[in-house]
C-alpha cells in the first residue's frame, strides 16, 4: 500500500457513519446520566424551545388584562409600592392596548399578539409567575440557572447533562442569538460546574452562525489530508501511551467536529423550505427584526428536527432597550411584539404541521414583568412580584389560565409559581425528576431547583 493510499483510507474515517454514531454514543455516556428511555419516567417531550423575552415584557399589556388600571389611570397607585430599580414611580398606568378573547378557551390576549393569540387553545398561560430579583442580571441568572449569581449551570445544560443529545453532529444546547445577549452575558447559557460539553453553543443568525465551524483550508481535500495524517499520528501516540480514555475521546471529538462542519451550514441553508413556509415565518416581512426573529424561529424548528435537545432564542436589538421599557412603553412594546408575534405563531403552526408539537415544549417569557404603575409618565419599571409566561406543546393542557395576580396586576396572589417550579415542570415533561437530577459540587448534590420546586400539575394534560 502506498503512502497516498494509506492516507486516503485514513481520510475515510472522517464521516464514516456507523463508526461515528457509535463513538458519539460512547462519548456521551461518559458525562451524562441518561438511560435509554427517559431518565426517571416516561417523557412527554423530547425538546424544549425557550423563547426568551429579554428585558421583561409587561404582563398587564399582553396576557394579563386588568380593567381596574383603566379605571384608575393617572391616579396615585393604591397599593403599597415595593422598592423599584429606578425609584421613579409614577401614577397608575392603564394599558395602551385592548384585549380580546380568543379560541374556545376565550383566553384574552392584547392587540400586541394577534398571531400568537390564535394558539391560546394550545397554551397554558401562567399569570402568577414570581421571581426573587428586580435587577436584570440577577433575574436572568435566576431564570436561566435557578440561582441569582453568576456561574451556575443553565437549564439547557442541566437538560443535556440529564438526557444527553439525540443529535450526532450538533451540540445539544443551542442558543439562537437574535442579536441581544442578555445582561449577565454568556454565563446565562453556561455549564457552570457541569462538564463544559453541556454549555450552550451560541449561534447567530448570520453566516457562519458559530465560531470556528468553517474549515480554513481552501479545499476539502486539503483538510482531509491533514486530518488523515493527524489520525495516523494519533493512532501511533495512542498505542505508545497505552489505552487512555481521555486521549480516545479527544480523538473522537475530531469526528464530531468534522461532522459539525458540514451539519451547521446544512442547518442554515433554507433551500429545502417552501416559499410559503418562509413567508409564514415573516422572512419576507418589511420589518427587519421580524425577519431576523423569523429566521431563528425557523432554525429552531430545524434544530428540533435534528434532535437538538434544548434551544433558546434571544431577541433582536433595536426595539428600544429589549423589552425593558422604562419609558416609551407604547413604542417599545409595539416593536418588540411585532418582532416576535408572527414568527412565534409560525413556529407553533409549523411544529404542528410536522407532528413535532407533541414532542416539543415551547416556553415564552422574560425574567420578570413590569409594574402596573408608571415609571415617570410613560414607562413601567421591573416587577418580579407577579408576571406572565406561557407554555405550549407536548404534555401541556391547552387553553389553561393558571394563577392570578391581584386586581392591579402587581403581585401574584393565587397559585404562585416560582422559577424553580417552572424548571421542575420543564424537567418533568422531559421525563426528569428535578429532585433526582443532581451533580456533586462544592460539597453537596447540586440541583437546578436547589432545594425548591414543585411540578405545576394543573397545567399538565
Amino acid at each position, binding site marked *: 500500500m502506498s503512502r497516498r493510499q494509506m492516507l486516503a483510507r485514513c481520510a475515510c474515517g472522517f464521516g464514516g457513519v456507523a463508526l461515528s454514531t457509535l463513538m458519539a454514543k460512547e462519548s456521551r455516556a461518559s458525562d451524562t446520566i441518561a438511560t435509554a428511555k427517559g431518565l426517571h419516567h416516561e417523557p412527554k417531550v423530547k425538546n424544549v424551545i425557550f423563547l426568551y423575552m429579554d428585558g421583561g415584557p409587561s404582563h398587564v399589556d399582553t396576557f394579563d388584562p386588568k380593567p381596574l388600571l383603566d379605571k384608575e389611570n393617572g391616579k396615585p397607585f393604591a397599593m403599597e409600592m415595593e422598592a423599584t430599580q429606578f425609584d421613579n414611580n409614577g401614577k397608575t398606568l392603564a394599558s395602551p392596548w385592548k384585549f380580546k378573547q380568543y379560541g374556545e378557551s376565550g383566553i384574552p390576549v392584547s392587540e400586541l399578539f394577534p398571531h400568537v393569540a390564535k394558539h391560546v387553545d394550545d397554551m397554558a398561560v401562567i399569570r402568577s409567575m414570581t421571581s426573587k430579583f428586580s435587577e436584570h442580571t440577577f433575574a436572568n441568572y435566576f431564570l436561566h440557572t435557578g440561582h441569582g449569581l*453568576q456561574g451556575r449551570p443553565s437549564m439547557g445544560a442541566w437538560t443535556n447533562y440529564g438526557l444527553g443529545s439525540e443529535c450526532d453532529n450538533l451540540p445539544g444546547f443551542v442558543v439562537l442569538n437574535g442579536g441581544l445577549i442578555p445582561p449577565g452575558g454568556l454565563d446565562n447559557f453556561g455549564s457552570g460546574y457541569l462538564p*463544559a460539553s453541556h454549555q450552550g453553543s451560541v449561534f447567530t443568525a448570520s453566516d457562519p452562525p458559530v465560531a470556528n465551524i468553517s474549515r480554513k483550508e481552501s479545499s476539502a481535500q486539503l483538510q482531509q489530508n491533514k486530518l488523515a495524517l493527524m489520525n495516523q499520528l494519533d493512532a501511533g*501516540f*495512542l498505542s505508545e501511551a497505552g489505552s487512555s480514555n481521555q486521549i480516545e475521546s479527544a480523538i473522537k471529538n475530531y469526528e464530531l467536529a468534522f461532522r459539525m462542519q458540514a451539519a451547521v451550514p446544512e442547518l442554515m441553508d433554507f433551500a429545502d423550505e417552501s416559499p410559503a413556509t418562509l413567508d409564514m415565518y415573516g422572512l419576507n416581512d418589511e420589518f427587519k427584526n421580524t425577519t431576523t426573529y423569523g429566521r431563528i424561529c425557523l432554525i429552531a424548528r430545524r434544530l428540533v428536527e435534528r434532535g437538538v435537545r434544548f434551544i433558546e432564542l434571544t431577541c433582536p436589538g433595536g426595539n428600544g432597550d429589549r423589552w425593558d421599557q422604562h419609558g416609551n412603553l407604547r413604542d417599545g412594546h409595539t416593536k418588540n411584539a411585532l418582532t416576535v408575534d408572527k414568527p412565534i405563531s409560525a413556529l407553533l403552526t409549523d411544529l404542528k404541521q410536522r407532528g413535532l408539537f407533541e414532542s416539543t415544549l415551547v416556553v415564552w417569557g422574560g425574567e420578570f414583568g413590569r409594574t402596573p404603575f408608571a415609571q415617570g409618565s410613560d414607562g413601567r419599571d421591573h416587577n418580579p412580584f407577579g408576571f406572565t409566561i406561557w407554555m405550549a406543546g407536548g404534555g401541556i393542557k391547552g387553553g389553561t389560565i393558571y394563577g392570578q395576580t391581584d386586581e392591579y396586576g402587581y403581585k401574584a396572589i393565587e397559585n404562585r409559581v416560582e422559577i424553580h417550579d417552572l424548571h421542575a415542570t420543564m424537567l418533568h415533561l422531559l421525563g426528569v425528576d428535578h429532585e433526582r437530577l443532581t451533580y456533586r459540587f462544592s*460539597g453537596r448534590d447540586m440541583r437546578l431547583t436547589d432545594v425548591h420546586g414543585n411540578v405545576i400539575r394543573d397545567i399538565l394534560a
Partner: protein
Amino acid sequence: MTSHRFVVALLLVFACHARPGFASEPKQTFPAADIEFFEKKIRPILVKRCYECHSQESEELAGGLRVDSRADLVEGGESGAAVVPGDPSESLLVDAINYGEYFEMPPKSKMPAAEVALLTDWVKRGAPWPAEQTKLSGYEKKFDLAARKESHWSWHPVVRHDPPPVKQTTWSSSPVDQFVLAKVEEAGLTPANSADRRTLIRRVYFDLIGLPPTPAEVVAFVSDDSPQAFEKVVDHLLASPHYGERWGRHWLDLMRYAESRGHEFDYNAANAWQYRDYVIRALNEDVPYDQFVREHIAGDLLPRPRQNQTEGFNESILATGFWFLGDWCHSPVDIRQDELDRLDNSIDTMSKAFLGLTVACARCHDHKFDAISQRDYYALMGFLQSSAYRQVRFESMDHNREVAEQLATLRTISAAAILKEQLDGMRPGLEHFAESLVTANRWNEQLAAAQKDAQNPLHAWAQLAAVNEADAEATATKRHAVAQELINRWKTEAEQATTVRKSIRVIVDYSSPSPGEFIQDGSAFGRSPVVPGELMLDSANRKLSVATYGAAKRDPAFNKLGTEKGTQAEPGALGKWQRAGQTLRTPTFTLESGRLHYLVVGAGNVQAVVDSHRMIAGPLHGRLVKRWGPPQQTGPHWVTHDLSRYSGHGVHVEFSPEGDGPFEVLMVVEGDAPPRNLLETPNARLLDMLETCVADQDDDGFDMTRLASAYQSLLLDVADKTASGKLPAAPQARDDAAIAQWLIENAELLRPADNKRNKQIGQLWDDFITKETALKEKVTTKSQSAIAIWDGNGVDEQFLVRGNHKMSTDPVPRRFLEAFVGSSSSCSPDGSGRLELANQITDPETNPPIARVMVNRIWQHLFGRGIVPTTDNFGVLGQPPSHPELLDYLADEFVRDGWSTKKMIRRLVLTETYRMSSEPNRAAVDIDPDNILLHRMNIRRLQGEAIRDTLLAISGRLDAKMYGPPVPVYLTKFMQGRGRPGNGPLDGAGRRSIYISVRRNFLSPMMLVFDTPVPSQSVGRRNISNVPAQALTLMNDPFVIQQSQLWAKRLLEHESESAERRIEAMYESAFARLPTKQEVDVAIGFLQSQAEAAGLPADRWQTEERLWSDLCHVLINSKEFIFLR
C-alpha cells in the same frame, strides 16, 4: 409587626438550643365553646392549608415548625414562636397568612380573607385547643459541633508518621516514595518504570513553568550523564520567572480572579491586575506560604509589611485585593441582600482556598455535615463588615506616611520655637495689659471691632467701655446692668447650644475623636486631626495661629496627589475624583433618620457607603455620592446629605477633597437639620471672668480697672498654658484656644518693637520653611493604585435566621471558626481584628487544614489528582485522602521547611513516583483502574493557557515580557453584549495567557473551551472536559492557523536545512522527541500529497510555506501535542 418581638422569639430559640427538651406552660383548659370553635373552624383550615409542610404528615418539616399541636405552635420552629396566644400582632403565624413582613404562607396562594380572619380571631381568643398530652415533637437542634469535629479526620491535628516499610527497598529512599510504594505493594502491584528523559523533561517543564523545553534544553538534559542531571533541570525551572506565571495561574483560579465586575455592564475591577502581578512575584520569590496567607487576610495590618525587592513598595497590602475580586452589581434594589451575597462570595473564597472548607454552606443553617455552625458564618462575616474596599496607593503609601510623620514633627518643634519667641516678646506687654487697656489708646481700633463682634475676647470690655452716662455714678450703674445683661445673654446662648447639641446625634466630632474614629486612607489628613489649641504654621503668610476648633484637615503638602499614567479610575461616579491616598472615613454606624450633616471647610466629595455598596453607576443609588464646590464663605459650613431612604442600614461616610483649596471635616451629625452656630457658643472663660468680676462688685458700681486686671490675669494664664505646650483638652480647649489665637493675632500690639527678636523670629521661619519645603518635595505625588482592604471600626454581623436579612437578631462577635478557637474567643475591639484572624489561620496548631490543603494542591498540580481529590472540600462530603499518612507527613514537612512552596515542589518532582512512566500496567486494570494508588504516572491534558503559550513558544512569537496591564482579549463577533471592551490583537501581542485580560462577560473562548474556570467562585480543581469545540478550535481558529504559519515561516528561514532536519526540529519543539524514520517519511508524504491537492508543482513541497504550515497545523492538532505523558 415590630422586630422587637422577633428578638424575643429568637432568644427563645437560643434558649431552647441550650436547654433540650420542652418546658410546657401551665396546662390550660378552654371553654367548650372555644374548643368547638377550634374544631369546627380552625383545625380544618390548618389541615387544609398547612399540614402538607408543617405536621407529622410532612415529608420534610418546613422551617422546623409543626402546626398540629398547640405547644408546637407556641414554641415555634427555627424562626421562633408562631403563635403568641392572645396577641395576633405578635404572632408570626398571623404575619405569614397576611403575606406580611417575614413570611408569606401558604406560599402558593394567599388564604381567603375569611380564613385569615378566623385564624386571627382564634389567636386573639388565646389559641384555644383541646387538652393534649405534650408537644408532639419539636424543633430540636441536632447540631453537635464537638461530635462532628471529633468524628471527621480533617479537623484533627497533623500527626507526623514515619514512612511505612516497603519490600522493594531499592526503589527509592525518599519517604514520599515509600508512602506511595507501600500502598502499591499492598495492592500486589509494582510501580511503573522510570519515564524516559524526553518524556520526563517535557512533563517537568509544563508542570513547573507551563512551557515546553526548547530542543537545546532537551538535548542538554538527555546528554547530561551526571547523577544530578534532573535536579539541575528542576532547579533551573524553579528559578525561572516563568514559574510564577504558571503557578500564579493556579492560584488565580482559587481567587476567582477577573478584571471586570460582570453583571449588566461588566465594569472594570480597577487595577485588579496589580493583584495578579503580586501573586506572580510572591511565587517567584517563594514567599513562605504562611506569610502569603497572612498577607491575603491582613496584609494591610502587618506591623512590618513586606517590601518589593526592587522598588521598595508595600507588597503585603496588594494581597488583600483578593477579598474584592468578586462580581459587583451596579444598582441592586435590595442593597442589603446584595451586600450579603457579595460578602458570602468573599467568605466562600477565603474558606475554600485557605481552609478547604465550605463555610458558606452555613449561611442559612448550621452546616449540614461539617463542624461549622451558622454562628461561625456570621462571626466571620463581621471581619468583612469591619473592613472596606479602597484603591490603595501602594507605591507611595509607606513613604508618604513617613513624610507626614516628619512634617508633623517639624511643625510641632518649629511652632513651639516661634511661639516661644512671640510670647517672650509679649510678656512685658501682657504684664502691663490692664494698664494699657485703661490708659492707652493703642487698642481703640481693636475695641471698635470688638464692640460688634461677640466672639472677640475684648467684646465685654468694649461694650462696657462704651457706656458713657452723665456722671461716673450713672455710668457705673449702667455698666453693671450691661454686664449683667451680657452674662445673661451668654448663659442663655450656652444653654441653647447644649440643647441643640442634644437634639442631634453626633456621629464623629473630630475635635475630640474617640480612639479609632480617625480613619484615613493615606496620610493627607496628617498624623491626627487638628485639635483646638494646636499651633498651626502658615508658611505662605508666615503666620502662626492657634486652632480654635478641631478638624480632620487635609495637609496642603499632599495637594497634588494623582495617579501614575495607566492607572484605571474606578467605574461609575467614584472615578470622577481623586480619592486614593486622601480619603477620610467615619466609623460604620446604623442610620436612624438618615439625614446626615457634615460640617466642613472647602470643596469636597463624599460617598456614603451603605451596606458596603460601591458600584455607584446608574440611577438607583446615585444619591449616595455628593460633591460640593468651593463655598461662598471661608470657614466651616454645613453640607446636608439626605439618606433617609436608607434608614436602618449600616453606613460609613468617606470624604475626599476637591481641588487644591483647604479641606477640613469637623463633624458628622445626624438630625432633622444641621445645628446652626455650633462653633459660636459663648466663651466660657470670658463668661466666667465677667461673672466673677460682677459678683465682686456692688449692684450699683462697676470698676473698669478691676475688669482690666481680670483680663490681664486671664491672658497671662492662657499665655502660660500655651507656652508650656498644651492647652486643656476639649471641650474647654476651644475657649482657651480662642483667647490664645487672639493673643497671637495681636502680638504686634502687645510687644514693643524689637528688631533683634523680629530677626530671630524671621530666622526661625526661614529655617522652618526651608525644611518644610524639602519635606513637601519628598511627597510622592504620582502613584499607581490597586484594590486593597481598609480597616475600619469593629462591627459584628447580626445573626440572620435562615440567612434572611429581614430576620436579623443579635450580633455575633467576630471570631474564627469555633472548631478551631472555641466559641468564646473574640478579637480586640479596635479595628476589624483581621490580623488576629490571619495569625490564627496561619497557625498550624490552631488550624490543621492550612498546611494540608496547600500541600494537597501542590500534589494535585503535579500528579493530576489530589491526595484528597476534592481539593477545596476537606469536609464530610469531600472525598477522603487516598494516602492520609503521606498527606500529614507532607503537611508537617511543609511547615518545617519554612512553608516553602518551591522546596515542596522540588521534593515532589524529585521522587521516583513523579518520574514514573505513564504507561499502563495490565495487571493494574482491575486492581487500580483509576490509578489512585499511583502505580504509574497519570496522563494529563495541558491546560488552555499552556496550549496557547506553547503555540506562541514554538512559533517564535512568545513575548517573555512579564507583568503590567492586561492585553485586551481578542473579541470574536460572537462576543457581544453590554460593556463590550475594546478589541485586542488576535495573538494577544504574543504575551503569555496569564496577561490576557479576564473580563467576566467577555472571557476568552479558547480558554473557556479548554476549561479555564469562569471566575465566579473559587475553583481549585478544574474540569477536564473533552468537547468537539476543542477540536474545532485547534482545527479552525484563526489564531491557531496564524501560529502554524509563523512556525512554518520560522522553520523555512533555515533554507539550507534538509526537509528531514526540519521535520526533526518540529518534533523536538512540539513533542520534545525526535521523529522515527517512518514518521519523517509520512510527513514528507503528506507534504507531497498536500502539494498535489493544492495544485502545486511536485517539487514545491520542500519550500512552500503553506504546505509546511499545514504540517505544523497537523502536529498542533495531534493529541501528543496537548497531552502530557
